[in-house]
């Protein structure tokens, strides 16, 4: 119940970010560029349905991935997010004239990002315990099992805010990572080789496939290339 309340609070907060602007619900803000294995999306109150490559995503649409699955989403400003396995997120975007501001709520899992935004645009990630305002270009954000969040920055700069408790803030530069816990503390450290490798790995979305041909059917199994 407590977790549910927390998620509700975060979603309301994310919506408040765009208070004052009127998101066009039916206006697509992103496209599903690639899906591997189990990727589904949900629009409004509709049920979860399998996601197809080339599907457009509107604001408030949700995307989730299963085991060994991946989704690559591209916003209309060419910013890319890579939704890794067992992740779930909801997209919020506010389009005004020739600009678009985005706030992606990551409920669970790991999401890589490669931002291509203008100065007057925002690109934020919100997790149950962190709000990250992306000023740089590349990295990933993840929600750990204890609801603490990790942000890894490989290029550029990201301002972070712990959304609970102490509500500490900080700036995470290239080659650094931040962890925000449920008590609102933020620790910023230099990247470890393991995190650097993970950041490199998250950028890769190429898969391999095996096709089994029988007299009755052909079956194609696609899987992620593990590093």
């Amino acid at each position: 119940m407590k977790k549910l309340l927390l998620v509700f609070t975060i979603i309301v907060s994310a919506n408040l970010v765009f208070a004052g602007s009127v998101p066009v619900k039916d206006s697509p803000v992103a496209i599903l560029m690639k899906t591997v294995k189990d990727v589904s999306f949900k629009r409004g109150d509709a049920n979860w349905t399998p996601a197809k490559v080339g599907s457009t995503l509107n604001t408030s649409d949700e995307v989730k991935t299963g085991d060994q699955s991946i989704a690559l989403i591209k916003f209309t400003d060419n910013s890319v997010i890579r939704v890794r396995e067992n992740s779930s997120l909801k997209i919020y975007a506010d389009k005004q004239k020739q600009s678009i501001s985005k706030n992606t709520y990551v409920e669970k899992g790991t999401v890589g990002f490669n931002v291509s935004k203008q100065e007057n645009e925002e690109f934020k990630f919100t997790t149950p315990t962190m709000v990250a305002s992306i000023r740089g270009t590349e990295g990933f954000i993840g929600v750990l099992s204890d609801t603490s969040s990790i942000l890894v920055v490989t290029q550029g700069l990201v301002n972070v805010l712990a959304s609970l408790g102490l509500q500490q803030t900080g700036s995470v530069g290239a080659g650094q990572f931040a962890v925000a816990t449920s008590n609102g503390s933020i620790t910023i450290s230099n990247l470890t080789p393991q995190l650097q490798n993970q950041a490199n790995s998250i950028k890769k979305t190429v898969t391999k496939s095996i096709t089994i041909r029988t007299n009755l059917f052909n079956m194609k199994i696609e899987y992620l290339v593990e590093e």
Partner: protein
Amino acid sequence: MNYSLRTFLNLSFFLCLFLVAGSQDIQAQVSNTISKINFGPAKEGEDVSVEVELLQNQQINRINFYYRNSAKSEFTEIEMELMGMAARCIIPGEDVTLPYVEYYVVVQTAQGEDVYPGLSVEPLKLIVQAGSPKDKEVIVMAPEKNSSVSLDEFFVSISLLRASDAVDKSKTKIFIDGADVTEMAVFADDIIIYVPENFGKKISLAGHNLRIELYDTQGNLYHTVESAFSVVQREVLELAAGAFKYRGEVNAESRREDVRSVDTWYNNMRITSDGSFKNWNFSGNVYVTSEEKKHLQPNNRYSLNIRSSWLDLNFGDHNPRFPSLIMSGKRVRGVTGGLYLGYFNLDFTTGQVSRPIEGTVQNYITIRDTIGGSIVEIDSAKYGFPRASLSSFGTYERDVFAIRPSFGKGQNFQWGLTYLHSSDDPKSIAFSAKPKENIVLGTDLMIGFDDQKVLFTAQGAFNLINNDISGGNFTDAQLESFIKGIDSTMLKDLDTYKSARDLASKFITVNQFIGPLNPQELPTVAGDAALQLSYFNNFLKVSYQYRGNEYTSFGSSFLRNDVAGFTIYDRLRLFENTLFLSGTFESLSDNLQETKFATTNFTTWNTSISYYPRTNLPNVIASIGQSITENGLDTLTSALIINDPTKKSLVINDVTDKYYLQLGYDFFFKYKHQTSVSFNYTDRQDDSPGDYDVTSLNLNLSASTAWAEKFSSNFSFILSQTDLKGTPFNYVTLSLGGRYYMMNDKLVLNSSINPSFGDFKRVYADFYAQYFWLRNLSLMFQTRFIANSASGGIPASNDLIVGLSTRYTF
């Protein structure tokens, strides 16, 4: 602009060029070795590929490409990679600036040098296109520009998020390889999606071109964006995603050339490959040719490169880049590398820059050479005579070693120190004279602020040279005798001189041939400094250079010596990058060490205006400039000439005016056309007694037309009128060619005919057919026929070149 007016303009321009030829990138002038030069797209800040097509390559030793942009006074040299009937190189993007890059080519043959477009002709111009801010209004989400996408994941997605309010998004058109697919595309607000599979279409496994046309609310073409991509099998991408990636290419050619009744057979093969493993990249290159001869410098090439973000190692043939005063453009066969740690970096190279080639003995003799002719001392015990008269001097093996430690990443600050030592090996051959040795010490500095919008760069160097090291270092007796010869009172410091000799001889051979002889006048000092400011759409560069008259670096043997002065270059961008104004002023002087009778001043100014309209109108580039060269001597008033009239040939006093205009226009009228017309006029008025007046007019019309997806044609017309001191040399060259794809693109046919009329008469015709057995294996047959008319006492002759080549990629 209404439709009828636009149509009229289209038609007018189209008719003016009467379906003409080639693109602006193709240049053709009179040459015995070069057929034409092709350039890749020349866009500001992007690398430009250069391909020099050769008429024949009999006895071509080397081809050098020289270029400079408007901000540079000196030409930069690149040794081109020669393979078969073409030579290639890349102009680095940093040097590709508006409005144009000037260039010329020097072909070194056994008979001498062939300078293209000619010694008395102004360098050619490669027009550089400006990037348009409208390009950013179209975001190609998929497939990404220059990317490879697997067949089963291919679809097109375009975002018009950034499109201006003037654009009517619903009127946008999408073309793939020229075919309009707009009707099959789905428009969803800012996004346009085209999935060929939904319409039962399949795109081929090949390179493709995506073109997006935006239209304004009036229905006029607003802007066009093009993007290239490749569709490949999934396995190719899987391979690329693996930990170890590699690719390679094998080219092999066999060619027979019958030129001026000399029959020569050429065979060559090139294997190139590159790969990567995690954060390491590798590349290798092997080129072997039947042109590899012991009596020439190497034509074969071998290289292996290993690099990462912090280490770069090259084995074999490489062109290391050090500060340009010390080493640039020189091929070294050995090891070149660098360690890049950020705050500390180390570059080095060691190897051979020329290999030993023995001289040719005419006869063995005993008499001494008294006039500095072709008689050299030899090993009498070995040859039975103390001397030999040579019909050609040999080339010593010359080795080089250079090292440059530097401090700073080079983003805001870098300071470097460079040491170069290069020496001939006197024992490498027997029949030559005066082996040399050279050391250079230099330093360079770079300071940048505000993301390098303020950039200061400087470099300085000093060299010593020994012009004959065959005798080795001075012995004590020789040193004493030498000093005594200068001033016998200096002998009291003999021990000091001996110590100095012992110390200096660790770096360079110390004997009577070491220079400079007048170090106090800085003849072997060189330096450059430049300040760049990039603010308010304006780029300003002010630079100063100083080159002593004896400055020599064996690593950079193409520098202009004995010159000093400053250059100012300014370029202003206006109206959202549609209009560019640029100007250059340069003032240089020679005679820095007062070794000449008079000081020559070189003053050059040049202005240009470039217009790249947003609307569908031609691009326009116009420039005007003047070069003044004078040394103040006058046949009537200069005492030097009045006292000695034979010195009147020393008078330099000429003014050259230059005018250039180019119109370029790419448009669709039934078919896609690329057209251009350029006009170049130079007038050199020589007021010296030599009176070497030269006027030159060149008119070049060209156009290419894509008549269909499989067929394109090109046509060009070149009018050249030159007057060399009252002697006219006028000719016209036409070129008509075409390319046709057949058998499902497996066979490509290409042919052209190029007749020249007037004072230069020649007809050459090309035909080649390329057949793709597999997607990665092709075979090409090429033939060229050249009918040379009699000229300058050389009888008419027909040349024939027939070649077969194959290309395999993996």
